[in-house]
């Protein structure tokens, strides 16, 4: 059975006019007009959970509203398939690959099963991430334009796994990456599409001041003193200990508080260990608030970000860094490491401040606390930067532009 997502309630395109302006929405409609009647198939590996499903849950209905025939199918597989794809995922991020040779056959067998089950009759087929990449085999019988969208960082992949996947990727008409840094040398065009956030989702929508106050009270945070916040999983690559150290330096000069909020500690043994280390580093400082939040805490995260004086993202390694996007969207000054997709969002001294060390992080926080007018300007320009480039509507516009470009190639 094909799993098709049809019943998710989302905002309509016109609802986005309040954040983008009616003219920008009219432009999206003008782009879409030339694609009316064309069909698009999106394929990924999960209907819920994770950034890709979240993005498709928002983007697919918006494109349907534009009278483009978009269908979203999800591949299926047994535990053995997902064990392989999980191992692929880790290996593509630079980890080792320890599964036996047969795992490649398992991967191909499930892709073949899905190829036989799904209908590939669309004008544009967009395959998301490595799990369904071998579905390109279906192209020979169905045609159309095929695009592979890679949402992960391929800058340092495990050689064995990449050498297995690359021949499939190279048969697509193009590949999409979230950052030039994440891409590979490929014989096909590689497009740059940024990830995006939904300004109308619970995590990002405007909040009633009462909601923010209630959340702060619930967590014992003082609204009257500066709040420094990092929202992240409890993961060493997010350097929470470095954040605590930076805060301790700042604390010598400013009576401020630190909020470290995120999840990942309850279902991940390493997360649990990191959380314990952070608690240990915080000691008895009552102004350090360590919050291990459940996955359904979108409103709480929104409130914490909106209440913050400064948003920190001191990652040692990062994907695109959507928590930075969220902070910028809320007009907050952001101090963040110059890694992964962060420099794309934080343009140093224009939309935030980039740092390369714990001491640098502490210094820039002190600078912003001493210069609230500069902090405000950075926050406002950061908000505009997100509005122009990193909202779900930009993703839809980008997809339409790509489809128009590919359609134009048909007639040449």
């Amino acid at each position, binding site marked *: 059975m094909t799993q098709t997502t049809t019943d998710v309630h989302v905002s309509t395109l016109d609802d986005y006019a309040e954040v983008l302006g009616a*003219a920008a929405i009219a*432009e999206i409609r003008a782009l879409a007009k030339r694609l009316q009647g064309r069909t698009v198939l999106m394929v990924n590996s999960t209907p819920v959970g994770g950034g890709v499903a979240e993005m498709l849950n928002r983007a697919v209905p918006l494109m349907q509203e534009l009278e483009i025939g978009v269908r979203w199918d999800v591949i299926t597989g047994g535990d053995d398939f997902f064990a392989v794809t999980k191992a692929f995922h880790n290996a593509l991020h630079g980890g080792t690959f320890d599964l036996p040779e047969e795992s490649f056959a398992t991967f191909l067998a499930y892709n073949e099963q899905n190829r036989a089950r799904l209908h590939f009759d669309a004008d544009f087929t967009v395959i998301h991430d490595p799990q369904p990449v071998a579905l390109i085999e279906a192209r020979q019988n169905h045609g159309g334009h095929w695009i592979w969208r890679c949402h992960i960082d391929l800058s340092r992949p495990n050689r064995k796994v990449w050498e297995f996947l690359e021949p499939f990727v190279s048969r697509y008409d193009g590949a999409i990456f979230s950052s*030039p840094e994440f891409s590979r040398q490929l014989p096909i065009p590689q497009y*740059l*599409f940024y990830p995006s956030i939904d300004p109308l989702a619970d995590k990002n929508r405007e909040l009633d001041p009462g909601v923010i106050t209630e959340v702060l009270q619930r967590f014992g945070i003082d609204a009257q003193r500066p709040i420094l916040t990092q929202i992240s999983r409890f993961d060493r690559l997010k350097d929470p200990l470095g954040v605590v150290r930076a805060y301790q330096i700042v604390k010598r000069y400013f009576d401020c508080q630190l909020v470290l909020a995120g999840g990942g500690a309850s279902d991940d043994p390493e997360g649990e260990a990191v959380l314990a280390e952070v608690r240990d580093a915080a000691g008895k400082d009552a102004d350090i608030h360590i919050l291990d939040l459940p996955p359904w805490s979108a409103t709480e995260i929104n409130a914490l970000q909106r209440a913050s004086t400064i948003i920190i993202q001191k990652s040692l390694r990062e994907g695109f860094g959507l928590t930075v996007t969220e902070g910028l969207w809320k007009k907050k000054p952001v101090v963040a490491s*110059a890694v992964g997709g962060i420099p794309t969002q934080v*343009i140093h001294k*224009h939309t935030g401040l980039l740092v390369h060390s714990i001491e640098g992080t502490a210094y820039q926080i002190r600078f912003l606390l001493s210069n609230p007018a500069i902090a405000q300007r950075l926050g406002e320009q950061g908000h505009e930067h997100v509005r122009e480039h990193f909202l779900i509507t930009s993703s839809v516009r980008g997809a339409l*532009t790509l489809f128009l470009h590919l359609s134009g190639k048909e007639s040449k």
Partner: protein
Amino acid sequence: MEAAVTQAKTPFQFATASYLVLIGNQECSNIVELQQGIETCSDASIFYHTFQSLERHHFITGGFSNDFAQWVFASCNRPSLAEQLVSLDIRDYVSLADLRGDLRRIVADYCQAHEREAAQPAFETFYFCETIEEIVPLGIEAWTLEEFRDGLKALAHASLQFHFITSRLRLHLHTNDFSNWLSKELGLDDLARKVDQIDVYTNTLDSARITILKLLDRELGQ
């Protein structure tokens, strides 16, 4: 008031441009490599990192000019070279070859005078990208100054940038679509000149639009 009733022979047709970004295979990790990259990258890449960069950052009014300058400043910590690159005004160029020539000259001069600094590794790598443009008519046209003002009022940023800034490369003229039409079709040379004088580096696209609208209203006697 005469301007309000003058009818153009050819209407102004509002359009928008939407851009796809192609990731190139070139990157650089120091200023010497930047020089090589500027010499060999495509015209579409020069366009992306200059004209298109200005659009992408149109909301910044203080010191952001192009991707090369920002990278040299933030990743190489070379403010003097950044300053020279910032000072290039894309409105002075009607061809990308000329713009590339000046970029190349500035970076090459720096490399020659500061051999050691130019070879030092940057904090972050610079990736050359390029742009594919898709132009889409918005189906809105103006025959009179009044209709033109109404159309301009309702434009999104992408469209404004397309007509007001990148149009130089299309027209191969030191002017923009708006000024070109105002002068050619309505004979409003003085208004056309004033519109073209608006500084796109110290204005946001929104504030530039407000200034144009004020000039139009004055012409219309409103």
